């Protein structure tokens, strides 16, 4: 009896909801003239990407805004780290998502070469031409066809510091690499190690190298090296390694010395600067350091944690190394057309503003007003990224085959870790890097 009453109650509710829904839908037609045409109602766009946790939640807000506008439902699936394998198996299984957020240039190229992607629509391409620096179009294109729209970017040329530590030492944020090392010595004199380096995570070391190389050798050589048209034994590489070695071999500059650095992972390196027991004054990594400092260690970004742009090396320009997630449309998606509409939406500053407000997001879109960002630090990173324009370069190790630039305990990661352990022979390290690269790019 009890049971039955509850069921009737429930069905009553559903009926009510349905009725309400119907009225809402019925009324939707005329009302939506102002807000959006709801042309896609009834369709579901499936999206796959590496995001999870708060990133997924914030991206969902963007998708919800799209739903609001067009009426299309959306469904986001998190793929975990290995997008290419997951998407590959989904395509083979006949269950391809419509849109994929691809985190690496290499993966985008791989998808395009396999013929999985639809070229972006003219509308999207126009938005990209108008709102993005050409370099972003280049990284989204394969053989001259635009396949990928960079929706979210990362700024990987930011050195984060604890203002307290720098004040205590009486130094100002430096603008050249040499000045940075000098400032580091002063910080070290004040009793705090200068840099906390996450040697246990090889990718942080590749980022160090890339910033130095981009600034010292220039963007042309950077591109050539990224495509492995330039050999790693080139004099410019040896020089950049030597420059990096100036930091790596100096026990005063590295928290815990080389051994300590090799025993520190990325979250640990942020903890050393922004944690409860600070052991270093500065930590280099991308804009996401702010997120860790805030979420894990409760620092207020802007007062307890600040950044300066990675300084220029030698006579070069200050580098801006970046990364990003590109949206692509799969040919085999069931609702590829609606997916394309989603991309057209993502290309608008309106879409970027939704996530920018939520935080933890940078857009390469120039049209997005800096006022949309939630705090000053993000605004400053966004400004630095957008104003770098065409001199932005993508993370080199993300462009390389995974065996070279993305494998724990192998390739570039491992060799730079060895270099951190013993930075005395840049030439030998360059030769080893070349040997590993030759093998990986061939396969």
């Amino acid at each position, binding site marked *: 009896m009890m049971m039955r009453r509850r069921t009737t109650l429930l069905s009553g509710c559903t009926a009510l909801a349905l009725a309400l829904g119907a009225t809402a839908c019925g009324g939707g037609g005329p009302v939506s003239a102002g807000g959006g045409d709801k042309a896609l109602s009834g369709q579901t766009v499936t999206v796959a990407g590496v995001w999870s946790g708060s990133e997924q939640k914030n991206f969902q807000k963007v998708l919800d805004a799209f739903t609001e506008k067009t009426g299309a439902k959306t469904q986001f699936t998190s793929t975990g780290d290995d997008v290419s394998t997951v998407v590959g198996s989904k395509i083979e299984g006949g269950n391809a998502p419509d849109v994929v957020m691809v985190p690496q240039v290499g993966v985008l190229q791989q998808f395009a070469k396999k013929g999985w992607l639809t070229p972006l629509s003219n509308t999207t391409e126009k938005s990209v031409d108008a709102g993005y620096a050409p370099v972003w179009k280049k990284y989204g294109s394969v053989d001259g066809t635009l396949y990928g729209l960079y929706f979210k970017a990362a700024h990987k040329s930011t050195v984060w510091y604890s203002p307290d530590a720098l*004040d*205590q*030492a*009486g*130094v100002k944020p430096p603008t050249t690499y040499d000045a940075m090392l000098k400032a580091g010595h*002063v910080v*070290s*004199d*004040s*009793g*705090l190690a200068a840099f906390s380096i996450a*040697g*246990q*995570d*090889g990718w942080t070391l590749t980022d160090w190298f890339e910033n130095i190389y981009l600034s010292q050798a220039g963007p042309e050589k950077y591109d050539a090296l990224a495509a492995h048209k330039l050999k790693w034994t080139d004099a410019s590489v040896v020089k950049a390694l030597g420059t990096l070695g100036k930091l790596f071999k100096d026990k*005063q500059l590295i928290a815990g010395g080389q*051994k300590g650095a*090799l*025993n520190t992972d990325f979250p640990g390196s942020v903890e050393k600067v922004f944690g409860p027991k600070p052991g270093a004054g500065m930590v280099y990594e991308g804009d996401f350091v702010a997120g860790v400092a805030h979420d894990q260690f409760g620092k207020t970004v802007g007062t307890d944690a600040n950044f300066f742009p990675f300084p220029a090396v030698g006579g070069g320009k200050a580098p801006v190394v970046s990364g990003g997630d590109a949206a692509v449309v799969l040919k085999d998606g069931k609702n590829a057309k609606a997916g394309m509409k989603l991309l057209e939406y993502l290309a608008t500053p309106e879409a970027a503003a939704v996530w920018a407000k939520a935080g933890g997001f940078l857009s390469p879109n120039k049209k997005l007003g800096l006022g949309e960002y939630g705090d000053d630090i993000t605004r400053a990173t966004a400004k630095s990224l957008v104003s770098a324009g065409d001199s932005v370069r993508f993370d080199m190790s993300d462009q390389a*085959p*995974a*065996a070279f630039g*993305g*494998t*724990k*305990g*192998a*390739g570039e*990661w*491992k060799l730079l*870790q*060895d270099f951190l*352990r013993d930075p005395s022979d840049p030439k030998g390290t360059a030769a080893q890097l070349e040997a590993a690269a030759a093998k990986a790019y061939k*396969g």
Partner: protein
Amino acid sequence: MTATLVKETSPPVLGAVERARRSRRRARFIALLFVFPALLLLGALVVYPVLFSIGRSFFDASGTRFVGGENYTEMFRDPATLKAVRNTAIWVVVAPALLTGLGLILAVLVEKVRWATAFKLLLFMPMAVSFLAAGIVFRLAYDEDPNKGVLNAAVVGVHDAFTGTSEYPTARAREGQGLKAGADGSYRTSGGVSPGESVTLGLVGVAPKDLPGGAQPAYAAAGRKAAPDEVRGVVYLDFTPGGGGKQGKVDRRESGLPEMKVEAVRDDGTTAAHATTASDGSFRFTGLKSGSYAVELPGSNFAEPYQGVSWLGPMLVTPAIIGAYLWIWTGFAMVLIGAGLAALPRDALEAARMDGANEWQIFRRITVPLLAPVLTVVFVTLVINVMKVFDLVYIIAPGPVQEDATVLATQMWLVSFGGGNNQGLGSALGVLLLLLVVPAMVVNVRRFRRSQR
């Protein structure tokens, strides 16, 4: 059974033979029918993958080009694979032997304690923990930072209890300001000092929060004049918080370094006087004979804190992982051997005891030989198990030493899926692993067969 049936029911002998044959054939058919699902599963899950891997190992990374034995030669050209072979060999030689020995000792001992079952349960419990979880636990336990790794915390605790720690492990002399470093970590004035003179010894690298409590500014003490028969001086922190201080000068806000050991050293290297600095960093040597002295800050002031053992460094990583493996499997070995022990004929032991054998003799001459079959089974099972160890190595070894810890199974995975994406080479490694496991399998199967007979 059939024979009696035949006798009862059928007079014509020929028909009986025919029927017997038919029923035997049917029996065989039914047996096959029953075995078929198992055979099918075995074929699909074991035979086919093995054959496929062998075939795949003759093709290149993309799987389209036949390369013959190239993957096999490449395999032994790659230093990482050679290291994997070496490490696997270490594992196979060390781990099963240690485990069988430990299991035997524990099984024999446990038999004699009162709470045997509880003890066995306790030792067996790690078997219930997944390798992944155990790996994470041991990764933490082995952490080099004594604040995180429990093993190093213990090692450092014991070490520090005996030797004590120094006051200023991070301090160092300001370069180019009159102090030169000795080989033993000490600092010494570069010029000679005579009685009647005073010196200022500037150090840097001490954070304000690391200063001993009660440290006072050194400015006043630095101004005091020395008497004719004494050498005076201050040891101070040559760094003004917030910057702005002058290097090599005692600025007003710069702190003295208390409790620093200072020595006056004669030209011939012998020590003339000792002192310890006061709270403002001042010290003095009184009653010195005239002559030239060097003022030295002995290395003991700056001894770096003991960092413990680098468990997960390139040298110790494999033994450390084997240690974790022992923790998991000791219970297994103990329980199996314990079961064998319980089945031993008691009379043999009793007889030996009656004849006056002591416990050690009984263990060596009776228990072990009688247990030999069980020990072999445990040993061979563990050998097979150790060959395919993967999870522990993959989880415990940190990135920088991954290659130093790698074994064939991790190498196979890394080469085929973990970035290498060369499944041809990976298959070749898999085949190598198979070839290495086969002898152990053969031994085990033979044993089973013999014990069934």
